[in-house]
């Protein structure tokens, strides 16, 4: 029997059915109501600086080619030939003059236009190639170098969609005079989990830290999260968590990267990060200069792990499988050796070999098993911690609360509920 969405999430999202994670029908609605109607992160402009540069991406399960065109514009097309459907590019990234389907060598420009059909000269009728390009993603926009695409031609502009979440994201981006850079290709790995739990984990759930990660995170680091931590929701589905350090806190306790091993291991990197923090107030203002970031989420499936500087996307592969992508982020103007050391803050702790993330992966796969067991449908998952305790804040946009308040997840599921009910057959 199909789940009714009104029964999967209750009206204040304090109870979430196990079916939200495991029912194939729910997943089909997610594809339509969420992945067909949201802005989805594709790539960062630093990955494709030159004409002809391209990277692969996904929008849900749909493979996308993101390329820099000859005139410098950014083009996102579905990687599937209009003749027989094969991918026209198999490489993860590179620089191409054109994309050629292996089956009959139909040839496309990097912008996605069909340029040549080799068989055409052997037949009499001519084909109107202008109507047969790769299927373009109807909306592509960038913000701060972050490229997003949407399958919904009517979607609101990206700036508006991100809204006040930009204020929180800029607290990181704007610290760096010459911006940030994505280091090479993302790590990609497959987990037997539902795509929403990795997302929820970064959206605001920093409170699993002291428990799931007790083997690695020291108690004093956790105390800081409890005492100084904030969870903020500017729009349902987005979320930001950070510590707001006291005004008299020593610079070393505030600066990004000082928690990681990178600055402990290299005095030069330490000094470099210190200088960035010394300029923080003039660049991002007094409040945001004191923000010591934890994790963020951007609806529906993009996360930012400020503490270890990674952007992550949770690509669904069905209700019980996720292809997780994780990019390392470094200041664009850092010397190469610093970039190498800084990326270690990400790769040692997160990604498929990460000291911390291997515990998360375990939790996410075990949760999916729990979501599939029988005779427990009358025990939906409890999402009620801190109900109604979030409030506006003088200095911080959105609704704000302590990190233990699960309102970030309730808000995500209320937006999720609306999005799925809008496409559900009655």
């Amino acid at each position, binding site marked *: 029997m199909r789940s009714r969405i009104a029964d999967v999430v209750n009206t204040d999202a304090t109870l979430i059915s196990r079916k939200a994670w495991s029912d194939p029908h729910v997943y089909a609605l997610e594809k339509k109501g969420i992945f067909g109607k949201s802005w989805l992160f594709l790539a960062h402009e630093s990955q494709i600086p030159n004409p002809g540069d391209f990277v692969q991406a996904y929008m849900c399960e749909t493979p996308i080619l993101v390329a820099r065109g000859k005139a410098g514009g950014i083009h996102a097309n579905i990687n599937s030939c209009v003749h027989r459907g094969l991918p026209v*590019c*198999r*490489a*993860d*990234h*590179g*620089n*191409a003059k054109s994309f050629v389907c292996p089956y009959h060598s139909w040839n496309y420009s990097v912008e996605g236009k069909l340029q040549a059909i080799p068989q055409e000269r052997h037949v009499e009728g001519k084909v109107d190639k202008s109507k047969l390009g790769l299927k373009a993603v109807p909306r592509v926009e960038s913000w701060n170098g972050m490229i997003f695409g949407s399958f919904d031609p009517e979607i609101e502009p990206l700036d508006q969609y991100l809204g006040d979440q930009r204020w929180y994201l800029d607290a990181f981006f704007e610290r760096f005079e010459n911006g940030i850079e994505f*280091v*090479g*290709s*993302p*790590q*990609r*790995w*497959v*987990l037997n989990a539902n795509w929403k739990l990795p997302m929820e984990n970064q959206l605001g759930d920093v409170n699993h830290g002291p428990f*799931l990660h*007790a*083997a*690695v995170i020291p108690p004093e680091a956790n105390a800081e999260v409890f005492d100084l931590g904030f969870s903020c929701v500017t729009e349902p589905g987005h979320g930001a968590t950070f510590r707001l350090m006291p005004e008299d806190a020593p610079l070393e306790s505030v600066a990004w990267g000082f928690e990681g*091993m990178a600055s*402990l*291991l290299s005095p030069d990197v330490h000094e470099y990060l210190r200088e960035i923090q010394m300029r923080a107030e003039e660049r991002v203002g007094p409040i945001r200069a004191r923000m010591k970031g934890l994790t963020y989420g951007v609806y529906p499936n993009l996360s930012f792990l400020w503490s270890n500087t990674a952007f992550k996307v949770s690509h669904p592969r069905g209700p019980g499988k996720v292809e997780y992508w994780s*990019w*390392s982020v470094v200041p664009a103007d850092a010397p*190469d*050796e610093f*970039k*190498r050391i800084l*990326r*270690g803050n990400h*790769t*040692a702790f997160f*990604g*498929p*070999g*990460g*000291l911390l993330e*291997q*515990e998360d*992966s*375990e*939790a996410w*796969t075990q949760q999916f098993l729990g979501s599939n067991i029988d005779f427990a449908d009358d025990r939906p998952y409890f999402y009620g911690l801190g109900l109604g305790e979030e409030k506006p804040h003088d200095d911080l946009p959105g609704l704000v609360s302590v990190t233990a308040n699960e309102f970030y997840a309730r808000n995500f599921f209320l937006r999720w509920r609306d999005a799925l009910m809008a496409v559900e057959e009655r």
Partner: protein
Amino acid sequence: MSEDYQTTLELQHEIEQWYYREARLLDGREYKKWLELCAPEIRYIVPGRGNPLVDNARRGEEDMISVERELEGRDSDGLPIRDESLPYLMLRVERAYKPNSWSENPPARTRRIVGNIEVMGVEGPAISVTSAFHLHWARPGSATCFYAGQRRDVLQRAEETVPGDLKLTRREVVLDLANIEVPTLGLFL
């Protein structure tokens, strides 16, 4: 170091014994003893392995499909799976003996066969060795997995040393996985 370095029976034997001992320690979960095989300056790298665009200009050449082209993040040139120094490895060993390292509670049962051990060259105290491994990984409640790869190591001999007393100063693990579908790459390969 040349491709056709001629090893000696004694050196080959010493190196092979080192690898067999290392495999026994790792599969026996004796990570603290394994850590003693690592030099303080060790660099432990697992490069990413991508699918680069084939360069038409290289057609007909072995270089067109070389393994090297697929490796990412060996230096500052992209993102590796791992790039770690001794403190990171120490943290991993410390974690292994804590009850709340949940992804290894219960721990995986591993067995690795290390073969094709080839001394690629000797430069002063540094011995370059290439080897291959097959690793069987089985953890209660999880899928059973198979890992394969190549190690590119540098072993260093101390100035005054007893036979077999070699320290690992560099390890680069070339993983032969197409898609990463194994539950973890956090193990010592």
